[in-house]
């Protein structure tokens, strides 16, 4: 947990919020738990991302559309070739979860690579959009299950929250695509947008 909190602080540092990053590092050194520090860092990043996203609606739309189209392509949902779709296989196969995680990581990576000027807010916006679409899917499926009560009813109730959390790995893919762990440039202007 400590390592993840350090990464959260590092992310703040890299988006131009060095003073806040320093404060959180100091609080971690004093008496705060890594979970508290991580929550503070994430709140700051999400807040800064939301402000940045509001100030550039066109880019946000482009990033969200990129993420969605990427997900459709890696799912095999191509126009005029519906037989290539692997959604059914993903939901029933043992290797499905691994492939799904890879797909969402790929979405974040592609968004970050295509928006190198300011990847962080756009990756967060994409992850938010994918969470929203998954939430609608989960809601519809749950309502359907409550109506027809199929045999896999209980299993599905365990699996659905995972589907809801899946877009979070888009952020990991986005940070990877933005060379976060290699020290590549990130959104230095997010502090201005705050």
């Amino acid at each position, binding site marked *: 947990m400590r390592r993840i909190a350090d990464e959260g602080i590092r992310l703040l540092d890299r988006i131009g919020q*060095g003073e*806040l*990053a*320093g*404060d959180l*590092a*100091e609080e971690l050194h004093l008496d705060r738990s890594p979970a508290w520090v991580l929550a503070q860092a994430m*709140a*700051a990043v999400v*807040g800064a991302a939301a402000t940045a996203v509001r100030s550039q609606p066109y880019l946000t739309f482009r990033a969200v559309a990129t993420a969605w189209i990427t997900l459709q392509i890696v799912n095999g949902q191509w126009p005029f070739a519906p037989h290539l779709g692997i959604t059914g296989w993903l939901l029933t196969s043992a290797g499905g979860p691994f492939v799904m995680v890879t797909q969402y990581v790929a979405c974040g990576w592609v968004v970050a690579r295509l928006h190198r000027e300011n990847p962080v807010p756009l990756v967060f916006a994409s992850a938010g959009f994918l969470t929203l679409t998954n939430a609608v899917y989960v809601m519809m499926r749950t309502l359907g299950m409550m109506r027809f009560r199929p045999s896999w009813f209980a299993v599905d109730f365990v699996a659905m929250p995972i589907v809801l959390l899946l877009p979070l790995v888009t952020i990991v893919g986005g940070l990877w695509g933005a060379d976060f762990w290699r020290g590549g440039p990130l959104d230095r202007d997010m502090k201005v947008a705050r």
Partner: protein
Amino acid sequence: MLTDFELMILLAILRVGDEAYGVPISRQIEAATARPVTRASVYTALDRLQRLGLVTSTLGQPTPERGGRAKRFFTVTAQGLRAVKEAQRAFATMWRGLPQLKGNLS
């Protein structure tokens, strides 16, 4: 017009004195209100106060416990002090003569 939170921040800076940076300011507010304070919101408010000319800031030296990052020290300007006094006067006027608030708080 200052928000309650901005007023709290100005008062916290005045209380902490020369060593007023993010951590003691936030902790001072938490101690006074007994509520958790989101650190990002403190910096958002400090940015706004600085834009309004109510506080100024200077960068300190980097320290090891902050991972080599510098502290940003805040000071209330004369204009900021005036804003605090005006808020105090406004609150005092609103407070005065309310029968529901008679007696000590304890």
